[in-house]
């Protein structure tokens, strides 16, 4: 065993620059701790203070992260973590997703009798996990970030404690998620055994320098890491339990999960594979193997997600399947991304567009849902355009964006993704993706037909939209249209983020 010779002093101190680039993490961590302390002030009714602290933390984090996007890469903690434009770009996405979820769920929690401050604290901790996940450079850091994010979300899924469906969803998600983490970890252990390091770059460089290191055990290790990730992003054939989880979770949590969690898992995935993709030589073996795996996974995910969504009559479950379908499109970005830089930029752009429109759709769903998440069947939406024209318009914008109809963010992102896939020579994959996308138009437009062309059923109930939720939905509509009309800016930021890694 190698003795600990000397402790290098530069590892014990942090330069000012390092502290500066760590600010987003400090802000969120500090906010989470303060919110947790605030939540024990039983006498003061911690509802408002914790809500305000959470929102302030998240927006402060957004502000700091946006400011750090143009900065060059800084490696932290002896190469365990990187703060670069890529991580700050994704931090902004996670923090915005969390802020919007918190804003939308305030009235929802009141209505469901769940106004517990733990909700906001758990969201803050899971966001911290996501941020670390997007900046991890070491498989162990990656695992800890993944667990920090997942453990908080397991509890959030089961937040409606008295509801059997919520409990069931939490339990299923917990078992699935922990098994996936264990598989990922075993893959890490095998890679460590082959290369003697747990650093992502170290593993890749060793495989590149010594082709002999690419043994069957190494390939098995990479495969297990990949399968662990595919579980996390709910790609077919590992999607079986995810619709149940999305259906059983409280609506705002489903929105948070399908955007934040997915974006975080994809961010880590992108980082690992950009490193793999940049390495030549021995990793070509790995690339060849994994190209086929991703190809099959992408096709399966798109086909299953879209075709099963066709038969759903519950809006929440339909969006759950549509979320799986969108994972499929993102995997297209993966297949092509290993060969072109633009592939990953297109994928990154798609993550953002998807986050915007999906959060918006779930925000509207949260406002429309009745007690215990009821009232989300298609016929419940009949004549919504007359009862609540503004919400009906907002939901239409989000659904059209998901279907990929111009001038929305979904169209711009899909166009970029598919055209970069064509450039990479994946014609058959793009054809399948476009066909699946065409199928998806049917179930998205069906909702619009119910909202605009059917007569209202029953007595019109009044919807109470809080200011917070109203602002959140309006912001999402504006962003969807803005990214759709002027995509260049977002594309440039996404490109810079991917290159600046």
């Amino acid at each position: 065993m190698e003795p600990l010779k000397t402790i290098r002093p530069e590892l014990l101190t942090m330069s000012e620059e390092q502290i500066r680039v760590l600010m987003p993490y400090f802000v969120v961590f500090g906010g989470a701790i303060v919110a947790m302390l605030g939540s024990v002030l039983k006498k003061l009714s911690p509802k408002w203070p914790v809500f305000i602290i959470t929102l302030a933390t998240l927006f402060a984090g957004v502000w700091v992260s946006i400011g750090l996007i143009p900065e060059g890469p800084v490696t932290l903690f002896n190469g365990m973590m990187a703060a670069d434009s890529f991580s700050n770009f994704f931090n902004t996405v996670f923090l915005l997703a969390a802020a919007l979820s918190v804003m939308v769920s305030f009235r929802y929690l009141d209505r469901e009798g769940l106004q517990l401050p733990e909700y906001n604290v758990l969201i803050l901790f899971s966001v911290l996990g996501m941020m670390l996940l997007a900046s991890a450079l070491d498989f162990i850091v990656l695992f800890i970030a993944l667990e920090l994010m997942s453990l908080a979300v397991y509890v959030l899924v089961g937040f409606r404690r008295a509801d059997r469906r919520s409990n069931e969803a939490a339990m299923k998600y917990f078992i699935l998620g922990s098994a996936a983490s264990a598989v990922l970890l075993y893959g890490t252990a095998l890679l460590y055994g082959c290369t003697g390091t747990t650093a992502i770059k170290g593993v890749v460089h060793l495989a590149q320098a010594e082709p002999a290191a690419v043994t069957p055990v190494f390939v098995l290790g990479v495969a297990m890491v990949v399968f662990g990730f595919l579980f996390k992003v709910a790609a077919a054939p590992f999607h079986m339990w995810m619709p149940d989880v999305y259906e059983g979770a409280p609506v705002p949590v489903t929105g948070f999960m399908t955007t934040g969690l997915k974006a975080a898992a994809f961010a880590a995935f992108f980082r690992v594979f950009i490193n793999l993709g940049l390495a030549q030589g021995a990793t070509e073996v790995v690339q060849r193997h994994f190209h086929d795996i991703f190809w099959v996974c992408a096709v399966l995910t798109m086909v299953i997600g879209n075709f099963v969504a066709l038969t759903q009559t519950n809006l929440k479950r339909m969006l759950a399947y549509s979320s799986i379908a969108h994972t499929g499109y993102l995997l297209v970005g993966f297949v092509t991304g290993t060969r072109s830089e633009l592939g990953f930029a297109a994928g990154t752009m798609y993550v953002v567009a998807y986050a915007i429109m999906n959060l918006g759709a779930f925000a509207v769903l949260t406002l429309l849902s009745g007690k215990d998440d009821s009232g989300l069947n298609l016929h419940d939406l009949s004549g919504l355009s007359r009862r609540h024209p503004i919400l009906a318009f907002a939901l239409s914008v989000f659904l059209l964006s998901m279907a990929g109809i111009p001038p929305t963010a979904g169209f711009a992102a899909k166009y970029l993704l598919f055209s970069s896939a064509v450039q990479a020579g994946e014609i058959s994959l793009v054809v399948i993706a476009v066909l699946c996308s065409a199928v998806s138009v049917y179930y998205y437009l069906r909702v619009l037909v119910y909202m605009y062309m059917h007569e209202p059923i029953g007595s019109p109930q009044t919807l109470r939209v809080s200011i917070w939720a109203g602002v959140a939905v309006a912001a999402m509509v504006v962003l969807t249209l803005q990214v759709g009309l002027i995509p260049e800016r977002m594309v440039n930021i996404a490109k810079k983020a991917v290159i600046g890694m």
Partner: protein
Amino acid sequence: MHQIEPWVVLSFCSIIFFIGFTGVLIRRNILVILMSIELMLNAVNLTFVTFSKQLNHLGGQMSVFFIITVAAAESAVGLGLVIAMFRTLRSVDTDEIQILRE
């Protein structure tokens, strides 16, 4: 002193890991499933330690500390969820928690 070959330990770990994985897939009692997950994580720990010894590198043993901590947090959350579920469902059998449509 007689030393155990690393490959013996490593194959042992992989067997334990797959016993755990199979347990998660086929067992019906949630508590047994939780134990299976722990089994998988501990197989990973043992793998890390073996490789650490074999490679003469401390990183693997450091990883084990983190994994043990995370595994403890995970089982705490898992048992909490089991209790919440038992309160509403009065069962820890996965066959009886199939309300959500397949």
